[in-house]
């Protein structure tokens, strides 16, 4: 059994998770990464996706996050999510609304850079939708 470390998932509204975990899979902006105890210090932005938490007691929990940051140090990992919900509680209408907004953003973008950014965000959202809705 792997060593446990402290993991915290915080959204602006509340502290969702603060417990000892074995491993966390984070949807980093430059690829997914699994964080375990004694990870080298990393700071990364995260894209919309699913965070999978494997707790010290062996349970697996999944949360949907919409962008944010992860601050990883050997002693623990803090995930600052712009918005986070447990996968079981996800509101489909809310997700659909976000996708709709992202589409509008992409359509309204003034320059190429903003457009590609908006489109990237949109594709991340649709991937996310595909990943969680059948579940």
């Amino acid at each position, binding site marked *: 059994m792997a060593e446990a470390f402290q993991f915290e998932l915080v959204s*602006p*509204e509340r502290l969702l998770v603060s417990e000892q975990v074995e491993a966390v899979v984070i949807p980093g902006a430059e690829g997914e990464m699994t964080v375990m105890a004694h990870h080298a210090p990393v700071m*990364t932005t995260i894209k919309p996706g699913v965070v999978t938490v494997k707790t010290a007691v062996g349970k697996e929990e999944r949360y949907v996050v919409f962008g944010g940051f992860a*601050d990883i140090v050997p002693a623990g990992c803090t995930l600052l999510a712009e918005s986070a919900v447990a996968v079981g509680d996800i509101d489909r209408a809310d997700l659909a609304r976000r996708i709709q907004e992202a589409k509008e953003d992409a359509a309204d973008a003034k320059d190429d850079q903003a457009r590609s950014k908006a489109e990237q965000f949109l594709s991340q959202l649709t991937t996310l939708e595909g990943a969680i809705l059948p579940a």
Partner: protein
Amino acid sequence: MPSLKDLRNRIASVKATQKITKAMQMVAAAKLRRAQEAAEAARPYSERMGAVLANITQAIGDGGDAPALMTGTGKDDVHLLVVCTAERGLCGGFNSQIARLARDHIRKLLADGKQVKIICVGKKGFDILRRDYASLVLDRVDLREVKTLGFVNADAIAKKVINLFNEGGFDICTLFYSQFKSVISQIPTAQQIIPAGVPSAAATETTNGGNAVYEYEPEPGEILSDLIPRNISVQVFRALLENAAGEMGAKMSAMDNATRNAGDMINKLSITYNRQRQAQITKELIEIISGAEAL
């Protein structure tokens, strides 16, 4: 001199008012608890955000690649004031205190020859400020329909501010809100959010467990340019939450006072009422007795 009937009516109406203020006080107390919980729940995020921000600014150092939101435009000609107040009145001096602080600030800025723009959050502040500075108000954000304050509300305000900044609409942005100290004390506060002051490095020491070398994904500058707008949203959110708690606290004590005043008034009116009733009885007795004596 009001008649007995008038007095009776007045006592009844003051009693009805007292019932209302009492109910409002209790509602405010319940809402205050919820608002306080929300403010407390939001605290970890803003604390961690501060720590992360301090850490990353340290990493970037004094390099010139810090985003403009942080360093400012280098001028201070145009000021944007975001004045956050409550949507409803009946909460003592809560709204007028914030508005007064903002107004003093505006007067000073105008006297210095600066240009001032205002964004009002909440109806009451707008009502007060538009009397003197209607032409300066750019926009007002209405949160009347919002039942529970969410991060999205704050985010929308912050986006508005940031867009304006990117268009070169202003140089310095100050947020006005009321800091929640306790139920009886809310302190109107002005906080500069753009350019964001660089947080002290002291906070980092405790969080990164010895000055370990961080890896950044993507580059620190890129993270920072993503982080700062978010930090502004967080600051706005915190201000709104503090305001919500403060409003309820102020309303609670205002309504408590009103209830007590109504009680005092009822006592006074009852005394007058009883005296008059007694006077009338005495008068009638005198009439009867003097009538009997005359016989």
